[in-house]
């Protein structure tokens, strides 16, 4: 309880644009406004085909609702500030980076290689240094999953340097 009060006090002392409630509300409203502007680019249906409302009306209403509710959340947060969240550790950013790495490798090189690389990378940075376990999560298990999906579900994985060898 004391810690919460302490963090609340700390939160109050920050300038408003550094506070989580401002940053979160700002991001939601900013993205909602961009999406709201996008709805104005939707095609308009001629009255004869229009059933009930225009296709853009419903998303527009939702976005306005989201913006309005976010403003309420922010207003309430000014009265009762959110507690300050702990700083994210390095392991989080490394995991996030591994997601980006996965997207790049799966797009440019190979889907299997991307899974394998991410698994080894994450396992290693989360503290697994034993080679056998790294091979287990990075190679043996993805092979089992691949073969299972390929044979049981009849799935065809996207082409890539390793997947092509498997299919040939």
């Amino acid at each position: 309880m004391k810690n919460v009060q302490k963090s609340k006090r700390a939160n109050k002392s920050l300038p408003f644009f550094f506070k989580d409630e401002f940053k979160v509300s700002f991001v939601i409203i900013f993205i909602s406004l961009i999406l709201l502007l996008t709805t104005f680019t939707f095609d308009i249906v001629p009255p004869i085909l229009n059933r009930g409302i225009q296709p853009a009306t419903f998303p527009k209403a939702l976005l306005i609702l989201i913006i309005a509710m976010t403003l309420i959340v922010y207003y309430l947060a000014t009265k009762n500030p959110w507690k300050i969240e702990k700083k994210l550790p390095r392991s989080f950013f490394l995991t996030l980076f591994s997601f980006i790495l996965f997207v790049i490798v799966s797009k440019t090189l190979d889907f299997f290689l991307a899974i394998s690389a991410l698994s080894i990378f994450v396992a290693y940075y989360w503290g697994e240094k034993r080679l056998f376990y790294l091979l287990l999560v990075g190679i043996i298990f993805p092979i089992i999953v691949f073969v299972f999906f390929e044979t049981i579900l009849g799935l065809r994985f996207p082409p890539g340097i390793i997947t092509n060898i498997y299919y040939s």
Partner: protein
Amino acid sequence: MLAPLFSSKLLLILFFGTLFGLILGVLPGLGPTTGGALILPFTMTLDPLSAIVLLTSIYCAGTYGGAITAVLINTPGTPAAAATCLDGYPLAQKGEAGRALGMATVSSTVGGIFSVVILVFFAPILAQLAYEFGQPEYFALAIFGLTMLASIGEGSPIKNLIAGAFGILISTVGKDFMTSIDRFTFGINELTEGIGFIPVVVGLFAMSEMLTQSTLINQVFNRIALKAIKLPSKDDYKKTWKTILRSSGIGSFIGVLPAEGGTVASLIGYSEAKRFSKNPEEFGKGSIEGIAGAEAANNAATGGAMVPTLALGIPGSATTAVILTGLIIHGVRPGPDLFREQPDFLYGIFGAMLIANILFFIFGFFGAKIFARITLVPNKILWPMIFAVSVCGTYSLNQSIIDVWIMLFFGVLGFFMRRYGFSVVPVIIGLILGELVEGTLRQSLVIFDGNWLMFFTRPIALTFFILSLIALAFPLIRSRKFKKNND
């Protein structure tokens, strides 16, 4: 009721579904929702009944499985087991882990079976009522479902509403189903078909949890050793039978309401157990009634949540949203017609839930010690493996790499949503209900010739709108009452 299940294939599926559900429930961060979403692509090779039997058995067993971790390592395996930690772990610390787990197993089974009975009786009645529903009534019902989610879900009601509205917004991505006009596709061809349910669920639950676990890699769990699980004594039964029955009723009722099902049910079941107890001072220190109250309620919510899912096509919880997707993927349309046209299919589901409850009692009773050991699998091994299954499972549904990227995007989004107090469950329910909300609204406006006020001339729709208003006002009344009591 059990006749459709008398095939070796279905019994085998039930067996493995229950086993798999227990394992998922035991592992913190996983659980029946994530597990159901991960298993969904595999069900494509099964017939509809087998697929739904698999999903429902995972649902029942996974909900119970969370109690094992709650009692032994003070970490709920599933959110629904959070209230079980309050008394389960203190009792285990006193050297009575076996007794705590025994009570959790018995009360979960009783709660689960009680809710199946409720399901069998009430789902057909609700389905019969649904014959009276037209488009405006379904629209009002969907709105009621979303407001209930905000009102009795976890966390801030307004944040829940924002998350629900966001879920509906996601459902508008792609070609408009009435006019075929592209919305929010940004020129990406793959988005014209819309954003699939599986990438969103796997992302919001599994991938966001992986990111959460990445922040906890140095966390050490103190696991209490379990010698053997013990059946509750006569004295324990005497103390708890009323609590178990009360919580079973509460859980089933909460489950029927479209909300977060088990999590809310267990908290209410627990607090009611405390309110009615002769020894409320024991709560939080290892009260056997506390365990019974929480566990009977969260398992009773499983059958309750299946009532609106099957009768109306409105999911009663996040896991039933996955089951609903499973039904739709397999070409089964939930609603009143299902009760008239495919009674065998429904009885198969009811029977599967009944047997799953008995099976997890047996597995839990004889295998809790083994399941407890699963918690020893280190996260650094477990989560890369879950990643591989998540990626392949998500890719498999449409064989689209874009789906995998969408899953990762929602993983990151889900992590930050949870960090800042936005529940991800309303997003899932919003996504599921989105098409229903928009479709029924637009069709109603066609019927009403654009006159919005006509909604209020329909008694059933009006009732749902009034209930929605009450649901929205409820958190305000609750917080005022809380403030008043504190003053």
